[in-house]
């Protein structure tokens, strides 16, 4: 049942064992040095308690009364499509009271179609599976004395991808503390847990495409959130102060993809964990994903959708860049004149300015250009990067031939190398034609030699950087660079004719 998973975590030990006899149950408890009272010895270990809907299959163990598997039916770890992706690295959703974590406590339980009740020591944990990726969770305490209790993400979120690169930047924990989102990737975790004091409405752990989170509903106790790494996976604890010994606290749990429409089911701004860039650019990033999905609906191949998207962006930016490329061309033509004026009126800045203005005016340089319009394009590319890198839409989506997964790096480096070649060609066309070396000043000569070095250096450097990037992102850049090159060749030709 559970055995499909290739996750090597010990808690997933072939738990098809529905009935374990008293002896082995006792053995289990001895092995794990615990506190199952002798009176309660008749409760059998059951590690295959299942709640299931169309989207997820949750496997619980009555040992610790916790979740030991969360299988997403619509997703697979590899390309087999068997729907066996387990987003848990091990255990999760244990509740501890003060220092007592009840990890090895054998709970009695009641299971009905979509709800599960663990009956523990003066408390109950009730799970109700909803029809989406959420699970309602209620903690009922009756007559138990303690200072705080803590819900743990346990072993955290699993590595769900076959190609894991830059895990430290893609995996992390988040908490919504005092109305602001604290989001940390593993790269900024310390040895000790990172602690956030204050009322937090939810905590979550996430990897590149999936998330596990808990949101508290309708009570405002002081809480403390902790982020930490366990077995190289991110995890988190949610600690809630409660001095009453009779209460019922409700939570909602998320176990699913990082996809805005699914995350929204959690409420409370939980979908914010999908924000991957600066807050003022996230809407643009998500808008790009929407466009990609729209194109994909018309042509069901994300590789082609990316190519069309690159064309669209080039067309939108065309009026701007076209004029700029044109003026680059013109500037190259009038460069000798400008140099002449600059040397002629070296000592009369006013006269030089006037003369230069005349030249600019006569040649109609830059009708649309300017550094400001150019800089305004930068946010577009910054927003595009996370859209192509983190969108689950591209996960395991093929393009052609050797590109079987646009979210994974190109195994043969063909796309990065193509991109480098296009970059080189593009720069060769953009660079001021070497023209009259004799007329150049020493400074200009020096500049050109640096440029020459960069002309070879940069593409090589970029191929090196891009070799581990998702091939969808590299595909986009390769196509965009190719289009820029074509645009430049076209303008060159037009000027040559004149």
């Amino acid at each position, binding site marked *: 049942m559970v055995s499909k998973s290739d996750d090597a975590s010990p808690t997933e030990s072939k738990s098809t064992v529905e009935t374990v006899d008293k002896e082995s149950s006792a053995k289990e408890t001895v092995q794990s040095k615990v506190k199952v009272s002798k009176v309660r010895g008749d409760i059998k270990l059951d590690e295959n308690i299942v709640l299931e809907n169309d989207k997820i299959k949750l496997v619980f163990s009555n040992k610790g009364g916790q979740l030991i598997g969360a299988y997403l039916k619509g997703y697979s770890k590899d390309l087999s499509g068997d729907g066996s992706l387990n987003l848990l690295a091990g255990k999760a959703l244990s509740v501890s009271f003060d220092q007592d974590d009840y990890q090895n406590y054998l709970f009695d339980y009641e299971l009905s179609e979509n709800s599960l009740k663990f009956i523990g020591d003066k408390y109950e944990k009730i799970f109700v599976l909803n029809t989406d990726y959420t699970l309602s969770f209620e903690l009922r305490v009756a007559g138990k004395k303690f200072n705080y209790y803590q819900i743990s993400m346990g072993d955290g979120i699993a590595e769900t991808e076959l190609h894991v690169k830059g895990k430290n930047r893609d995996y992390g924990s988040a908490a919504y503390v005092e109305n602001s989102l604290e989001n940390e990737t593993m790269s900024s975790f310390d040895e000790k847990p990172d602690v956030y004091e204050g009322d937090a409405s939810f905590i979550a752990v996430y990897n590149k495409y999936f998330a596990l989170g808990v949101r508290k509903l309708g009570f405002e106790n002081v809480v403390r959130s902790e982020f930490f790494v366990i077995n190289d996976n991110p995890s988190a604890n949610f600690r809630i102060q409660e001095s009453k010994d009779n209460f019922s606290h409700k939570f909602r749990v998320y176990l699913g993809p990082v996809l805005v429409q699914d995350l929204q089911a959690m409420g409370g701004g939980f979908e914010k964990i999908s924000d991957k860039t600066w807050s003022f650019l996230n809407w643009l990033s998500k808008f790009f994903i929407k466009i990609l999905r729209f194109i994909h609906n018309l042509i069901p191949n994300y590789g082609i959708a990316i190519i069309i998207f690159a064309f669209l962006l080039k067309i939108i930016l065309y009026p701007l860049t076209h004029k700029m490329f044109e003026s680059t061309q013109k500037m190259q033509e009038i460069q000798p004149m400008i140099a002449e004026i600059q040397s002629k009126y070296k000592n009369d800045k006013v006269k030089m300015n006037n003369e230069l203005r005349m030249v*600019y005016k006569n040649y109609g340089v830059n009708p649309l250009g*300017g550094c400001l319009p*150019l800089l305004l394009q930068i946010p577009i590319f910054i927003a595009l990067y996370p859209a192509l890198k983190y969108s689950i839409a591209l996960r395991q989506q093929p393009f052609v031939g050797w590109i079987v997964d646009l979210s994974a790096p190109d195994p043969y480096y063909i796309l990065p190398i193509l991109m480098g070649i296009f970059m080189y060609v593009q720069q060769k066309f953009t660079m001021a034609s070497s023209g009259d070396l004799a007329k150049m000043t020493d400074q200009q000569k020096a500049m050109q030699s640096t440029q020459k070095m960069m002309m070879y250096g940069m593409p090589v450097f970029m191929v090196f950087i891009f070799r581990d990037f998702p091939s969808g992102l590299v595909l986009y850049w390769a196509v965009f660079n190719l289009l820029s090159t074509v645009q430049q060749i076209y303008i060159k030709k037009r000027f040559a004719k004149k």
Partner: protein
Amino acid sequence: MIILNKAVLLLLWMYKNGVSPYLPNSCRFTPSCSEYSRLAFTKYPFFKAFFLSVWRILRCNPFSKGGYDPLK
């Protein structure tokens, strides 16, 4: 401050040599915005240089006449 200026100068060097060559020549001014910033960060303290650079880039738009605009 001197360290900050040096850091900006390094970024400007990277831009001029690594990024700029791939972009069309778009500046309306002489010296160009990046060269103007470089001079500003060489000559003035950080905040003044920063302000001058931002102000220059804001002026470098389609509605400006452009032309010769040296650093004062």
